[in-house]
C-alpha cells in the first residue's frame, strides 16, 4: 500500500458501503483520522463522521499471533517483523451526515451511498468550518444507534470548534442545537455537553 503524495488528505478507500455509512480501509496502518473527524468521499462529496476505528488482521481467518516475547520494545516487534504491516489493516467506519448538491450542502442522506473504492479524504479546517456552519447533521448523529455515539458527537464538536474562528460561540451554538435534539433526555444531553466544554 502506498501513500498518495499528491493528495495528502486522501487517507482511505471505501471497502464496504451502506445507505447510512461506510467502512474504508486506511492506506496506512494506524493511519485513521481522529474519532469524530469529518471525512468526505466522492464527487459530489458525501460527508461522514468517523465513529469507529478498527485495526485487525486483513485475513479475518488468520488470527494475529503474539510476536514480542523476545523483543525489548513494541517498536522492535514491528521493526523485526516487516510483514506485519501487510497482514494488518486499519479500517474506519463512518456515518454519513450530509452531501453536496451543487453549491449547497444538505444535511441528509444521499439518494445512493458512496461507491466501493471511493477515495476518502480527511476534511481540512475550511471544509469543516463550512460544513458545520449548519448543525442539522447532529440529528443524524444523535439518532444513530452505533455504540458510544455520544462520545463521537462530543469528539466531533470538539474538533469542529477548533476550525471556527470563535470556538466558544460555536460550542454554545452547537450545544443549543443538541439541546433541541435531545430536549427530552437531559441526562444524555448533559453527558455530551460535558464532553464539549
Amino acid at each position, binding site marked *: 500500500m502506498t501513500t498518495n503524495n499528491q493528495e495528502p488528505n486522501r487517507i482511505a478507500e471505501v471497502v464496504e458501503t451502506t445507505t447510512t455509512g461506510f467502512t474504508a480501509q486506511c492506506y496506512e496502518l494506524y493511519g485513521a483520522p481522529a474519532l469524530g473527524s469529518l471525512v468526505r468521499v466522492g464527487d459530489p462529496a458525501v460527508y461522514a463522521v468517523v465513529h469507529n476505528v478498527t485495526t485487525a488482521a486483513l485475513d479475518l481467518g488468520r488470527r494475529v499471533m503474539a510476536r514480542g516475547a523476545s523483543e525489548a520494545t513494541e517498536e522492535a516487534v514491528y521493526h523485526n517483523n516487516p510483514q506485519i504491516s501487510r497482514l494488518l489493516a486499519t479500517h474506519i467506519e463512518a456515518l454519513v451526515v450530509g452531501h453536496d448538491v451543487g453549491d449547497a450542502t444538505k444535511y441528509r442522506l444521499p439518494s445512493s451511498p458512496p461507491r466501493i473504492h471511493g477515495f476518502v479524504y480527511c476534511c481540512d479546517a475550511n471544509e469543516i468550518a463550512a460544513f458545520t456552519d449548519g448543525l442539522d447533521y447532529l440529528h443524524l448523529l444523535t439518532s444513530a444507534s452505533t455504540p458510544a455515539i455520544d462520545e463521537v458527537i462530543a469528539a466531533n464538536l470538539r474538533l469542529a470548534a477548533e476550525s471556527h474562528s470563535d470556538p466558544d460561540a460555536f460550542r*454554545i451554538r452547537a450545544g*443549543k442545537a443538541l439541546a433541541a435534539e435531545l430536549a*427530552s433526555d437531559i441526562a444524555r444531553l*448533559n453527558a455530551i455537553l*460535558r464532553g464539549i466544554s
Partner: protein
Amino acid sequence: MSTNGNQSDPGKLMGGTPLGTVVGGSLSEGVEVKLNDDASVEDIPVGSYVVIQGETKRFFGMVNEVKLAATDARLRTTPANLTDPFVAEVLSGTAAYGTITVRPRLLLPMIAGSDVELAPARTVPAHFARASKASDADVAQVFGVEDDRHFAVGTPLDMEAVVCLDLKAFVERSNGVFGKSGTGKSFLTRLLLIGVLQSRLSSLLIFDMHDEYGWAGSDAERGRQVKGLKQLFPAQVAVFALDAEKSMGRPVKPDVMVEIGYGDIEPEDIMVLRETLNISEVAAESSYSLERHFGKGKWLKAFLELEGRDAIFELANDININTSALASFHSRLTNRFARLPFLVEKPSQDSVQALMDQLDKGNHVVLEFGRYGDDVPAYMLVANLLTRRIYARYRDRQMTESVENGKSTTPLSIVIEEAHRFLSPAVASQSTFGIIAREMRKYNVTLLVVDQRPSGIDPEVMSQIATKVCCLLDDDRDVDAVMTGTSGSRELRSVLAGLESRQQALIFGNAVPIPVAVRIRDYGTTDSYDSLMRTASRRSAGKKTATSIEDTPSPSDRSEPAEPQAAAGRKDDEDELFG
C-alpha cells in the same frame, strides 16, 4: 449570540424586539409564546405589551403570565451540572426555557400607521406566529396621540410612547381614581381635570377636601407647592371657599365664600352621614319626623336649639321616637354642626345659585374646604347638600330642554374625595351621589370619585364606574372591588400589584382601548406646566369660537399666570416627559 437565522428577520419587520413563537393557548386564557433563547423572562414583566404577527392579522396583547419550563421533567430534580457556565448557557432557552402568556386584545392594521379603527381581537394568532415586544409605534397606534379629544396621562411602564385617554369617552360616564394613601391620586386627579378642562367637554365641580385643586396643591414629598387649576386657568376656574380664615392668607382671594343655611339641610343630607357619624338608622330617620314636626327648612335649627334633657324627652314623645335614640342623635348633631361657622341662619348669598351661574358660564368650580376638609362629616354635609341641589337643577333643566329642542346642556362632572363614605352600600341607595352613579349620565351629571378604600363603595356603584384609574392598593378587598366585573382581572391584578408606590397607575375601562399601566406624567415643575399649557393653547387656537367662556374677561393672561411665592423661581431639571 445564537439566533436561529430564521427568526430575526420577520421580527425586524414588526419593529419591536423579537420575543418568541406562539406554541399554544386559547383566547380566554391567552396564547403561550415560547421565548427565543436570547429573550429573557426577566425582561418581560407581566403587563407589558406584545405584538404577534399572525398570518393575516397583527394582534396586540398584554403579557399575563410568565413561566419557566423545561423540556424534560428531570431537569427539575437533577438540575444538570449548572455550575458549568457553558452548560447553563446552552440549557437556558433550549431545554430550560421561558414562556409567556399573551392575551390578544386588539387587532392592529397590518401596515403600521394606517388609519384603521382598532378592532377587539376575537381570535388568536396561529401556531408559530412570531411575537415581539410592542414598539413605540405600535403603542402610539393603540393609545392615540394628543389632540382635542385625547389627553396624555403618561407613558406605559418602560416605554417612550404616550398613553392618551379618550376624553370624550371619559366624560360620558362616571370614573374613579383609586389607590392607597400617598400613591399620587390627587396629582393624577389634577392632571385628569386639566385634561377635561382643556377639552371643554364637561364642566367640573370639585369638592376639594384638602385644598389641592383650587389655588395650589402641596407636594409634601418635595417640600414645594404646585399650581392648582386657578393658577393655570384663571379665567375658567372659580374658587369657592368655606374656610374664610384660611383663604385670607394668600395672594388671590376666593371668588365666592360659601355659606350654608340651616334651612337648606334636608333629612337626606343627614341620612348620608349615618355611617360616618355612627347614628342608628332609627335615629337618622327621625330627621324626617323632625321635618314634619318643625316644618321644612326649620327643623334642624329648631332641633339643634333644643336644650336640656326634658325638652328632648318631650319632643321624643311628641313625634313618637325612642327617647335615648333621639337624645344621642341630638348630641351627635350638636357636637358636629353647632359650631361650624359656615352654617348660618341666613346665608349672605345663595351658593347654589352662584355655583350654577359659574357652571352656566362654562366655568369650573373648585370648592375649597380649608380646615373643614379634615372634618369628614362637614365635608360630606356640604358636598352632598350642594350636589343634591345642583343635580336637581340639572335634572329639571335636562327634562325641559330635551322636551323643548333636544339640545343638551354641557355635562357636569362632580369630583369627590373619600368617595366610599358617600357611596357605601348603606348610603349609596339614598344619596344623590349614589343616584348619579347609578343613573349614568341620564341627566348629564357624572362623578369622578377619588378614593383610597374602594372596597367601601357599593358594588353596584362600582360597576357603573366606566374608567378606573388605579394606583397601588394593598388591601386585597380593595383590589377585588376595583377588579370586579373586569375581564382578564387576573393579569391586571398582578400588574396592579407590581406598580410602584407612587405616580404609577393601571388604567382600564372606557377611556382606553385596553388596560394600561402608566407612569403618570410629572406635575409640578415649570416644564410640566409649560407642556400642559402648550397643548391648551394648541387646542384653543383651533376652536376659539366654540367656547362660551370668553365672555368672562380674564383677570390675567392665561399663559402667564401669577406665580405664587412658594413656586417662584423654582425650576426642576427633571426631564420633560412630553414634548
